[in-house]
């Protein structure tokens, strides 16, 4: 039996592509503002099968967010469906069915009813619909989680914009242009958490 999950840990099951990076940053900023801890498969060290490492990470988190909005065909000529996100969601559902008190999962989509078409077995699941925007991600995070001393929606958006504007500087500092690399991810989390702490001490919470 694995150890109890981190009560603040949130496994982020998202596509690692350039077009998604704005929403990815919104997830990180929003979760840090709720004082939750985003966890990403890319932060776990190598060795062993990738799938085993991902499963351990899911088990170590109390929550998970599975964004299926980009479950679609990849770009031609090698067009193939993108299965990683549904695969990891399936693993999570199995884990939750075995130990319901240890994990809660959420499915996120960009459009209403798209989930019914892409994965009809999930009928009865209420997906969080972010409309493909950072504002939508932040709004849905506020709908999914609540905590005392939560920043206001405009403050959350303000922090998101500030962090997003720093992305190129963070890339330069870490010698990469990959927002999903471990070093960039950790800096994004650290910066978002710092700014949240400042807001908490300077502005009244909602």
């Amino acid at each position, binding site marked *: 039996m694995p150890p109890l999950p981190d009560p603040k840990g949130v496994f982020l099951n998202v596509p690692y592509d350039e077009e998604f990076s704005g929403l990815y940053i919104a997830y990180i900023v929003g979760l840090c503002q709720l004082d939750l801890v985003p966890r990403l498969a890319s932060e776990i060290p190598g060795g062993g099968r990738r799938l085993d490492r991902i499963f351990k990470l899911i088990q170590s988190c109390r929550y998970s967010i599975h964004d299926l909005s980009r479950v679609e065909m990849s770009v031609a000529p090698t067009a193939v469906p993108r299965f990683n996100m549904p695969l990891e969601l399936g693993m999570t559902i199995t884990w939750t069915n075995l130990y319901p008190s240890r994990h809660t999962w959420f499915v996120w989509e960009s459009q209403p009813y798209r989930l019914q078409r892409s994965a009809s077995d999930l009928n009865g699941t209420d997906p969080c619909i972010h409309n493909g925007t950072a504002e939508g991600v932040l709004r849905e995070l506020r709908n999914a989680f609540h*905590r005392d001393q939560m920043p206001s929606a405009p403050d959350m958006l303000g922090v998101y914009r500030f962090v997003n504007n*720093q992305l190129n500087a963070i890339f330069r500092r870490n010698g990469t242009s990959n927002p999903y690399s471990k070093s960039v991810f950790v800096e994004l989390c650290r910066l978002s958490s710092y700014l949240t*702490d400042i807001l908490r001490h*300077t502005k009244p919470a909602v």
Partner: protein
Amino acid sequence: MRKPIRITAPLSTLEEIEKRFPVSKASEKALRALVDEFKATLSKREEVPVNSIEPEKRPKRASAA
């Protein structure tokens, strides 16, 4: 629609944040500078007195029906 999950875990301290997200000394310094920049934007926003907003840009009061 499901009810939001209430997070009851205590808020993280700065020490916990730093331990959870370890960065290099150089990054730490750069992030601290960004924090100061953010603080400055916050205080600028808060310093704008209401009377300094041009009358035509002030929100209009709802008129009585």
